[in-house]
């Protein structure tokens, strides 16, 4: 039971992280380029701004 619950949480977290990365790239939101802070829109070519 513990294995089932914990693995479900872990896989859900992984799926969420993957989905976040995918969505963030698509929407122009920052996914962390180690220091872009403000130039993130150039990762995606969109003109949207990530506001911290």
């Amino acid at each position, binding site marked *: 039971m513990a294995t089932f619950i*914990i693995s479900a949480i872990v896989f859900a977290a992984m799926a969420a992280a993957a989905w976040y990365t995918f969505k963030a790239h698509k929407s122009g939101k920052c996914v*962390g380029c180690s220091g872009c802070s403000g130039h993130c829109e*150039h990762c995606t070519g969109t003109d949207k*701004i990530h506001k911290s």
Partner: protein
Amino acid sequence: MSIKIALAGNPNCGKTTMFNDLTGSSQYVGNWPGVTVEKKEGKLKGHRDVTIVDLPGIYSLSPYTLEEVVTRNFLINEHPDVIINLVDGSNMERNLYLTTQLVEIGIPVIIALNMMDVVKKKGDVINVKKLSEALGCEVVETAAVKGIGSKEVAEKAYTMAQTKTRTVPQHSFGASVEKAIEEIGNLSRSFVPSEFARWYAVKLFERDSKVLEELHFTKEAQDQIKATIAACEAEADDDSESIITNERYNYIGKLVTKCLHKKNPGMTVSDKIDRIVTNRWLALPIFAAVMFIVYYVSVSWLGTIVTDWTNDTLFGEIVQPAVGSWLTAVGAAEWLNSLIVDGIVGGVGAVLGFVPQMFILFFFLSILEDCGYMARVAFIMDRIFRKFGLSGKSFIPLLIASGCGVPGIMASRTIENEKDRKMTIMVTTFIPCGAKLPLIALVGGAFFPGSPWVAPAMYFMGILMVIISGIILKKTRLFVGDPAPFVMELPQYHIPGAKGVLIHMWERGKAFIIKAGTVIFVACGLIWFLSNFSWSMQMVEQDQSILASIGHFIAPIFAPLGFGTWQAAVTTVSGLVAKENLVGTFGVLYGLADAAEDDPAMIGEFAALFTTVSAMSFMVFNLLCAPCFAAIGAIKREMGGWKWTLIALGYQTGLAYVVAFMIYQIGSVLVLGQAFGVGTAIAILLLAGILYLMFRSYKPKSEQSLKGARLEA
């Protein structure tokens, strides 16, 4: 009613600082010109209906640079309700040149007389009332870096937008020029909006190519305009653009004399510092010393102390055992225990362990940028780069790339010369970005303990590779040509603001943590799966795993570089996802999070994979080869297609392979005392080839044929 307010002004006059202050954003601010190359928008705090637009810094509204075109297109086409024109009060004469053009556009202008803290500190006095009367617009004293006056100027701009206050330019040109502008204005009246009529007329008088393209005059009208301009030029004995420029500066000169009282017209503190740090002989040693100290403190000394605690104590003694014990206690399956402890905590923890070093490095880089020293470095490097075919303008992207390659590549947009721009994009990622720092720290700590030179050496190797590439590529048909001229204003030195430095450091560091929690997290899970399961989906030893079979397949490619093991091969490939993944993958494969890089057990694991020479070769290859996918995407966008992207990636990976090959083959003989072999001979030949490409004389074909034609004649 929605209101749009534009921030316009010279480069490095504090627009982005004011933008952040007004909108609560944390856009990148650097104390050198050209940080903002695209407009950015944000909502004014307390007024959700007001949009503030931060425009790139420009000196004029001429059509010569990308920043100028972006700014004037925005002003003319999107017609903001008000322009806040930031004027650097410590450098009024140059800044007002743009002001005289902005007030002509027909959009209400309010002046934020910025850097008044610097002006007052110098003891200078500006008569704001007289300045306001002479320019025909309101002037508000500000010091954006300290948050003084920003809100006041924004509130006044808001009121101006609501009351639709008009700005009427107070200065006029000489009689003959005014007559010509009026005649041109009459001809162009039906082609342009009435509020922009004067601006268009002046631009047409200047023979502005972009405006001429935009307005589709009849042949007759064009001829009339040409005749009007020619008559005025004949009278003034000068070209029309110079006539306007001279008249503007004459007007500004008189205005500044009337409004500004300088206390001490002699050398400023900045001038005195510059005499030393930009000195012909001292500049480079000082720069080398500064960067050595920055990397030594960040990576080797203070950074290592903090990182060792994070790795040994936090992850090694607390997190990993606690998670493992808890999972055992609740009866979780062994595979799940392995996934979480070895895969997730091991991989993500290995990356997070280097966060302290990264924060320290970003802290120092922020100070160097904010105080104004990095702008001097671009000036210093211009002198060196110029000899090798690049201009100092190419150094700005390299500066930014020390944080992340993506904005570095993007910053190359400011380079007008297409060949120089493409070449800069190709070499930008040679500078170690923040994501590569963990690799440097890991290899440096494990194989070169107590050697403070490793981290600074990797930074200087990046610069060296840029220079070597510049020399070699400039002697090819694709990139031949003189470097573009580089004009850069050196900002005043100032003591960095704690808030700005900490925000800058946090923004860069936070991005790293976000990435560890997303991309690296997923990648570590995947690496764990691939390294623990076979193709038949059975849990197996790593050597029989899917990852091992993939690694065995590609490992021979890296064998000549000294790291032909499957582990090193898959680690190198995983770096394409994100460079932090190099350490993350090692973390999963070897459980780095529970061992410091100087742990004997871990060195034992590593020693089976690498010698000191092959470790250096592995590190250099991964620092120079094709960057991560995000940077590859940026290269594709900036290069405008796959052809040049593949050329860039091919060059980067090819150069990385050759350099790593030489390090391993020659280093094995010189350092490890191995026998001279075929590989060593090939490495020496490659070295000779690189030296030949660097020192050969090259004349472009057109020049050769011209010379031949002359000889024949």
